[in-house]
């Protein structure tokens, strides 16, 4: 499988999509942070302090790992396209003919999709964080440890995109076609957090339980803003936060495994044309 991973990394690095994704990961934070700066300047609140009271770095950084932000929708779609291109180019056939097991081919795709997604979103989050901290204040008044909270936040973000990569890989392997992979990935990227938000708005108590059935439920708990959520669920201690973090990680792993099992079972039985 090592050779297949090397081959897929080589293929992804040679693809223009990777370059485009990297450029977007660098360009979007600049655009967004300067948009916030512009709004703040227009509203005149930057006279006393950059950032004023209109925005905080917490708000901007908090959405850095969101699937519904600009790059958040692009990454899973791109990961899906990169997997589909192996089908459409026919290079996937070369892998089968060369005596590679289908499970290895699938896992190689999955690993490279996850790597691609995590690297791009990490670059995006790092640039967003850096620029936000230059122009806006970051405040932490919660009772929990900031270091731990940052760890939860980053891990949660990485797992969000791991899950998204497993979803787009599954779609690519099932549909074998770029257009439906893009459409379903984007619809899913929007629908999932939207459903989560709607459920949480309708009834927080129900959300407590419903959240466990939503793969990205951890995103609602780890966003570095968190005061409301902290209070709501009485997670005002590191221990209670740790518990929900563990549940969130298990949820990601469970749903990512479900995606992989579905995708792999279809791919293993499929006749390749």
């Amino acid at each position, binding site marked *: 499988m090592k*050779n*297949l991973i*090397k*081959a897929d990394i*080589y*293929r992804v690095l*040679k*693809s*223009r999509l990777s370059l485009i994704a990297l450029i977007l990961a660098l360009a979007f934070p600049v655009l967004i942070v300067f948009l916030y700066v512009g709004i703040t300047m227009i509203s005149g609140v930057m006279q006393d302090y950059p950032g004023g009271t209109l925005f905080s770095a917490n708000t901007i950084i908090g959405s850095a790992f969101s699937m519904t932000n600009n790059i958040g929708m692009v990454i899973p779609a791109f990961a899906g396209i990169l997997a589909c*291109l192996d089908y459409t*180019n*026919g*290079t996937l*056939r*070369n*892998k*089968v*003919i*060369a*005596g*590679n*097991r289908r499970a290895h081919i699938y896992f190689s795709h999955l690993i490279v999709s996850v790597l691609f997604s995590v690297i791009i979103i990490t670059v995006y989050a790092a640039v967003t964080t850096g620029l936000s901290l230059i122009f806006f204040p970051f405040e932490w008044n919660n009772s929990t440890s900031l270091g731990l909270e940052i760890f939860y936040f980053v891990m949660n973000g990485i797992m969000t995109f791991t899950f998204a990569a497993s979803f787009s890989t599954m779609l690519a392997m099932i549909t074998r076609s770029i257009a439906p992979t893009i459409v379903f990935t984007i619809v899913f990227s929007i629908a999932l957090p939207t459903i989560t938000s709607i459920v949480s708005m309708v009834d927080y108590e129900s959300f407590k339980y419903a959240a466990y059935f939503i793969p990205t439920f951890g995103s609602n708990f780890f966003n570095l803003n968190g005061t409301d959520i902290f209070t709501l669920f009485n997670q005002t201690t590191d221990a209670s936060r740790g518990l929900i973090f563990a549940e969130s990680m298990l949820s990601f792993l469970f749903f990512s495994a479900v995606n992989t099992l579905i995708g792999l079972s279809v791919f293993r*039985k499929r*006749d*390749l*044309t």
Partner: protein
Amino acid sequence: MSVLTTTNLSKTYKGRFAVKDVSMHIEKGDIYGFVGENGAGKTTLIRLITGLAAPTSGSYSLYDVPGDSAGIYAVRKRTGAIVETATMCRSMTAIENLKLQCNITGVSRTDEELIALIGRVGLDYEEIKKKKVGKFSLGMRQRLGIAMVLVSDADFIILDEPMNGLDPQGFIDVRETILKLHREGVTFLISSHILSELEKICSKLGVISHGELLEEISMADLHRNARRRIVIDADDEAAVTAALRAEGSFDEIVNEDGKVIVFGDADLNRIIQVLVEKGLTVHSVNTLEETIEDHYIRLLGKGGIA
């Protein structure tokens, strides 16, 4: 040593047989020509033995390793194939595609070796080194596809319509490459519509039609059993036919396109003697042997010379 054996191999799509009970055998050192009309089942059979599709029933083995056993993955690494068209990343250059294929097959090649390989299949490296494969002609892609197969030192190569899109020089280059590799010990399974090309290189022939293998024959046997025909161009075709029929020793005499054709092992001297005795004017007498194409057409019962 057996390289490929299929036993009653079948594949159905929506209840319809694409390949039906095919039992074929390829020995080490064979160049096996696989012939059949469009949709006969050639590519489906190749897909089955390369692992791209699973058989509905029957079995196959590569190097005596059953296709449904865990050991099949290891022996597939000794196999290279182009199925239908050579598949490659169109946004990459030729050498990048070869490097990708090296990764896929797990072999290590230097740039110099890959450049030499590009030259070996008749591509000019200097001309194509910066060109994306998407801008290659069909023939160039076909040649690069063969180079990709050769990357892994495969000792069994399956080529599905390798002559497609090639110009006459391309035919010659590919043919010479195949023969050169064959001399180095590579076994081939080649499906092609271009029967005249197959005839020049094959040692064995399999004829498939409507999913069924009609015949598997060595070229030596085919030539041995080939039907010979003597074509006579004469002024009075009817008189020639009558004279030969009256002589009584010729099996089958046919009039076609203004010529008289005598099939079978007819004695040419006797024919000439009869025509001279009858004082008939003859412009030419040619002895022709049945070609692979004639044999194929006859086997499929599509008329032709038979």
